[in-house]
């Protein structure tokens, strides 16, 4: 099961790394916000949960989430067979992995530069 979970997370991760840009903002704090908000909203869309759009920033996170959820559903049919809890688990794993690759494990020395 762990291997399958890892394989599925890697599939979703591969799509994000190849097709998206939002995960590569120039500052660590910005990447953290992007990953957190877009992936949370994507999970909510995939689980048919309500997505709150209170601020203009929320709407920006939401539009990226809409396209991501749509691409995930189209490409990865196995998502349709998962329960909400399983989807939430996979998305949490994806979030952790993306945070590692783009923030905590990133070799980009400029992420914490105080000066632009």
């Amino acid at each position, binding site marked *: 099961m762990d291997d399958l979970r890892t394989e599925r997370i890697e599939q979703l991760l591969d799509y994000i790394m*190849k097709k998206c*840009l939002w995960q590569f903002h*120039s500052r660590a704090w910005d990447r953290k916000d992007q990953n957190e908000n877009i992936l949370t909203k994507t999970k909510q869309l995939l689980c048919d949960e309500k997505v709150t759009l209170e601020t*203009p920033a929320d709407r*920006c996170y939401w539009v990226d989430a809409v396209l991501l959820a749509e691409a995930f559903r189209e490409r990865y049919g196995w998502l349709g067979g998962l329960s909400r809890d399983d989807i939430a688990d996979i998305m949490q794993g994806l979030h952790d992995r993306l945070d590692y690759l783009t923030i905590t494990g990133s*070799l980009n020395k400029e992420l914490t530069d105080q000066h632009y």
Partner: protein
Amino acid sequence: MPHHLFKCSECIPERKQHAVIKGLGETLADALPLGYLNTIPGSISERGCAYCGAKHVIGTPMKDVIHLSHGPVGCTYDTWQTKRYISDNDNFQIKYTFATDMKEKHIVFGAEKLLKQTMLDAFKAMPHIKRMTIYQTCASALIGDDISAIAQEVMDELPEVDVFVCNSPGFGGPSQSGGHHKINIAWINQKVGTFEPEIKSDYVINYVGEYNIQGDQPIMDDYFKRMGIQVLSTFTGNGSYDDLRGMHRAHLNVLECARSAEYICNELRKRYGIPRLDIDGFGFGPLGASLRKVALFFGIEDRAKAIIDEETARWKPELDWYAARLEGKKVCLWPGGSKLWHWAHVIHDEMKLNVVSVYTKFGHQGDMEKGISRCEQGALAIDDPNELEGLEAMDMLKPDIIFTGKRPGEVAKKIRVPYLNAHAYHNGPWKGWEGWVRFARDIYNAIYSPIHELAKLDISKDEIPADKGFVTRRMLSDVNLPDEIRNSATMRPYSGDYDCLPNYMGKTYPYMEKTPAPSTAA
């Protein structure tokens, strides 16, 4: 992802940290090229200077402005014949070039009087232009001329004019990227918020990081207008000085470049609460997704979908014609900056080209993260390459074509690799659905040019065939294609106009009523 040390750089082992080969199963956390560092002494760089980045890359596309360099006349070199940032006001900003023409005596005695007189002369010579940007150079920065004070003196004497001062001397950063940063922040600090623009739509955006290379901007502008969106300002391609002073009134910043463009969006987000949305402008899929994203933000997705359907139906058969003939060809994608990641995945997905190498001359590590993520396994990623490394890479990778700038492009031609100008394009625009087909056509024409068949021969050792007759590109490209593709009734080569821009000029757009935006989704 192992680092790669070029044979020609064995005497500069630090260079090993600047090149990486994308390996199987490895990630960005395994290796990433260093970037945005001072060029290592002993290694020749192809970079530009910070002044070049501020003036020639970011500032000059602003159209209704006298762009004045305060320094030696040689600093104004990049102008009409080298930059293709065209504008719809007869290309004023690149047709004329202005400099104070500092000499040695000014270095000794100062050049403030010279600057003031030159400003007055320039406004007198161009009475219809009331806006000016002054660019500091190494020479005027070293002697400490107070350019801002002089600009204020001129504005006091000529109340109808407005002057922007950009302090970005050539030595102000390791590459032109330092200049991009300085001009963007200076613009935010000095000018944004000083002009109230006319708002004509319920949906208003700033389009940031679009420099109107060969007409890219009107193409994108057309899509936004067809959705009823007002492009308040384009930073800076075909952009108007006063529109850019009014950037604070937009509802959304649509960002297409990095990384300095990120700074201006982040500052607008912080100071004025305008959110930022990143988009891709190249390729059918990414561009369609981008328009959908902007439309979704405003709650007008149906308008974007109508454009995507119409444009895809019109141009997809033509893109497919080229993709069938470009499949498997190897590309060195060496554009200098952001196009390394704008193009890396989509030329593979939509034109079937294989990216065997990416590089950036002035990009940051963030650019490399994006580019490496998007290119294929085995690709060689290089930061700040020099000419010898470029030659060695091409000898190793044997690309069928290279997308790069003029200098490395001419070097590539000498070793018989056809090149396309990734900075200024060959026959652009390359943005938009039609533009993407024009790009595919330019790639096809370069790879299958019969003249390259001759150029590939080395007359010092190769036998020159005397039995070859007349050939066309089509004869070269179609020889191994299956009949159903060669004789396809649906696929066709580019059928647009030689100059497609006039089709966009003078178009009118109906006012579109606001659609109530949904407050929640799903």
